[in-house]
Every structure is written in structure tokens, then in C-alpha cells.
């Protein structure tokens, strides 16, 4: 059983200014005060209300893209599901192995080569050692990085990093895959391959949450859409309907 259940979840992110990040606080000039519907201030710490009373139930086979303006709460939702951010209130239940692909790369050491990073990731993510050779072959094939895999990942372009990161994230087919923007860096050819890989994935009934501004990518990888606006759930369901509503929001 794989599922994500979020009930009435609120996420308030404290924004520590330079003052709040100090233990010893000397008197300083008054800080700029900010007040909007999502940002409130108490003392030295501003609170950003990034997700408001969010309800969401995902079960096996749900491939959902998150859409919404910058700051709508897409990344916050991904971090919430990944367990990186705690909820201020509400309940979250996540069942299944999660792989969060939220940055541009997943290279654990950018001075190390692609191969070394693959091996280290394999160790950290508990991939069965016996199948290592098979995994490496698969990644070589999928990423098409060729001899670049023997170079430090530091020299990779954003697109190449995206290829490697995506290959690493999907290699062991996690139960729940969380993706943020990053893989948008890949070219058309890569996106096609990513789609094929994700299809495979879904046949094994897994959950995908993808935040992206690329409509194409969303359509290619997902079957449902969640539209967020200012931290609130506006619509959840059919992709086309969601994009129409998103267009209306602008």
C-alpha cells in the first residue's frame, strides 16, 4: 500500500532575518516590516503561511503535477511530503519509500565523478549490491552521458545534471517520487525518455508529484493536476481543466 494523506495541513515557515539568526542581539535599526496576507510578523521572526488548510489524498497510480504561480506553495508541499518541512497543524500520513528530487542535482559530491556519485547514492539508498552492474549499465543507457560519467559532476551542464539526477531517482523505483522543476532543464529528447521511464513506473502503481511550469512536461508525465494559489488548494483533478483555471487566475 502506497499513499499520501494530508488533512487540514498548515505550513508556516519562519523567516529568520539577520537579527533572529543571532544569539547575541545588539540594538539595531528598525527592521523593515512586511505584512501581506501570507506574511505576518511576530517579534523578530516573520512567518510565511505557505500552505493553508490543505487536504489531499493520493493513492497508488496517482501522477499529479502541481501548478500555480511562483510562491503558490508547490515546493513547500513537496517538502512537506518528503518530511523536510514539518506541518504547523494538521495531519500527514505517508506510506512508502520516498525519493525527493528537489534540487538541480543529486550528486553527493560534485568533485567526484558521475560513476562515483552513482555508487555512493547506491550505498546511501540501500540498492542491492548484487545488481550494481546492471544499474550502472541502465544509467549509462538512460543518461547517454558517455565518458562524462567519468568526469566530476561539477562540469556537467544543467541538462546533464538533470539526466543523472532523474536516472538516480527512478533507478530503484521509489514508491513515491517527488520532483521539483529541475528536470525541466532536460532537452526534448530527454523528456521523451523520462516519460517512457515514468510510464514503466506507474505500471508498478506508484505516486508521482511533479512541480513544473512546463505544460508539456506535466501533460507528458502526469494524469492529474493540483492547482495551488497563495498556499491554498484551488482545484484538483483533470489536467486540462486545471490549466484552464490556472490561465483564468492570471
Amino acid at each position, binding site marked *: 500500500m502506497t499513499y499520501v494523506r494530508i488533512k487540514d495541513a498548515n505550513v508556516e515557515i519562519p523567516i529568520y532575518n539577520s537579527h533572529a539568526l543571532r544569539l547575541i542581539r545588539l540594538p539595531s535599526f528598525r527592521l523593515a516590516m512586511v505584512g501581506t496576507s501570507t506574511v505576518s510578523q511576530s517579534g523578530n521572526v516573520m512567518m510565511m503561511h505557505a500552505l493553508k488548510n490543505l487536504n489531499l489524498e493520493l493513492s497508488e497510480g496517482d501522477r499529479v503535477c502541481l501548478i500555480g504561480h511562483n510562491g503558490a506553495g508547490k515546493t513547500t508541499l513537496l517538502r512537506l511530503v518528503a*518530511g*523536510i*518541512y514539518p506541518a504547523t497543524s494538521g*495531519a500527514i500520513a*505517508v*506510506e512508502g519509500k520516498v525519493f525527493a528530487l528537489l*534540487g538541480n542535482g543529486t550528486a553527493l559530491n560534485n568533485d567526484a565523478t558521475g560513476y562515483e556519485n552513482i555508487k555512493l547514492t547506491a*550505498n*546511501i539508498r540501500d540498492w542491492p549490491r548484487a545488481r550494481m552492474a546492471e544499474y550502472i549499465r541502465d544509467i549509462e543507457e538512460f543518461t547517454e552521458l558517455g565518458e562524462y560519467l567519468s568526469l566530476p559532476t561539477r562540469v556537467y551542464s544543467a541538462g546533464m545534471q538533470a539526466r543523472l539526477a532523474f536516472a538516480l531517482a527512478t533507478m530503484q523505483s521509489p514508491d513515491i517520487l517527488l520532483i521539483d522543476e529541475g528536470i525541466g532543464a532536460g532537452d526534448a529528447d530527454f523528456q521523451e525518455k523520462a516519460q517512457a521511464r515514468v510510464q514503466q513506473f506507474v505500471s508498478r502503481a506508484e505516486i508521482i508529484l511533479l512541480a513544473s511550469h512546463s505544460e508539456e512536461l506535466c501533460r507528458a508525465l502526469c494524469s492529474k493536476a493540483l492547482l495551488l494559489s497563495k498556499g491554498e488548494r484551488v482545484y484538483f483533478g483533470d489536467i486540462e481543466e486545471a490549466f484552464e483555471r490556472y490561465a483564468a487566475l492570471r
Partner: protein
Amino acid sequence: MTLITATTRESGLSAAAGRVLTSLHKSLLWAWLDVICQYRRSRIGPLWETINVVVMMLGLTLVSSAIFGGEVTSLIGYIGLGIITWSAINSLIAEGTTAFVRNAGFITSSNIEIDLYVGRTVFKIAITFGHHLILYFIGVGLMIIPLGWTSLLAIPGIILLFVNGFWIVTVLAFICARFRDVELIVRNLLQLAFFVTPVFWNHQNIAGNRRFIVDYNVIFYFIEIIRAPLLGRIPPLHDYLVAAGATIVGFALAFIVYRRMRRQLAFFV
């Protein structure tokens, strides 16, 4: 707020021990890769830091023998081993302060257990310490440092020091991520601690009414349980008791800090 991570987890002591061991193994591999990359950048890798230790050792031995008296050859073993051990303690504290801040990118974007960042830092320092030990064997080879069965007693001392590294790094990493000025304060105090601790001067030379400087200095005991056996002296039981006490208090502190700050870490890192 309730967070249910329903993923079935075995409970019980053996399962917990198993988790600790896997996490240690993973962080060792990560640290190992860091060292390999260091070797790639420069052919001698962490030995650059060993050269640093040599320079400090020679300089301080010269100064120390001039001020406190004594033969350079009899002092150099004491001071050298003192500096080698000190440099490990120094790195644990100094790098502990940035262990999470340096890995902020990973902490906010991946769900890797945070113990690995702590382990990565501690093991990296332990491996560098291993490089410095080359100097010890050179000292033995040159007959400056005695070699006997007592020397083996240093091994539990070294293990105890790096076990303590885990709580030191955990506590400092959390606090210094939340309060950024603490790092600067710690670095300042660290410099003072080097002069206050009997690293390059003998603790027996201190005036009776200032004895407390040594007696209440926990760092001194950690240095002694490594340095004394390597110089052929069995450290008094008292030294071990202090070190063991510090270990217990330290891990209790780490536990409290972890409980209080773990969930918020991604917000302030």
C-alpha cells in the same frame, strides 16, 4: 500535529543498533569519497594538513624548550602528539559548527537522514587524523618515542575521542545553524583553548594556585588518554572517568538538541 511515517520499522534494541551501524557505514563511504577527491585535487591530499602539523610541532617545540627549558628531543614527542590530538579536537569543533550549513542544499532538497552529514564530518576528520599518525610512526622509527605494550592503550582513547565527535558535531551543527554568530564565538574560544590546554606546555609546570586551569579542562583529559600511553605512561583511571562522564553528558545534550531542533532544521539552515 501528528506525523505518521507509517513505513514499517522494526523496533527493539538490535534493530536500533543495526540502523546506527548502517548509518555509520554510509557516512564512512561518503567521507571516504571526500578524501579521494581531496587526493585528486593535490597529490598528497590530507597530508597537506599533516605538513601543517609538522610546522606547528617544530615551531612550538623550539619556543617551548626556550621558555620552559628542556631538551628539544625530549619535548618534541610530547608536543607533537599533543598537536596531532589537538588538531583532531580542533577540527571536530570547528567543522562541527558548519556541518549543517555547508550541507544546506541537501538538507532542504533531499530526504537523506541528517545523521549522515554528522557522520561524514566526523569520519573525514578521523581519516585525516589517521594521516597525521604517520608522524607518530616516524617518531617511533627515529627512537624519539618509546614503543611498548602501553602504547596500545591509546587505541581506546582514540575511539573514545571520535565517539565524542558525534555529539560535538551534532550539538554545534544545530546550534550554529540556528544562531550564526555562535560559530564566530566558538572559533574565538577555540583559539584560546589551544593556549589554555597543556598541548605544548607540561601540565606539571603550572603554578599550584592555577591548577584549576588544567583540572577543569575536559579537552586536557581527552588529549592525555591518547598522548600518555603513546609516550609509555598509563593514564590514571581518573582521566578515563572524566572522559566517560563527558561522553554521557555530551550525548544527553545532543539528544535534547536533536529533539528540540530537528524538525525546524530545514527552516533555518
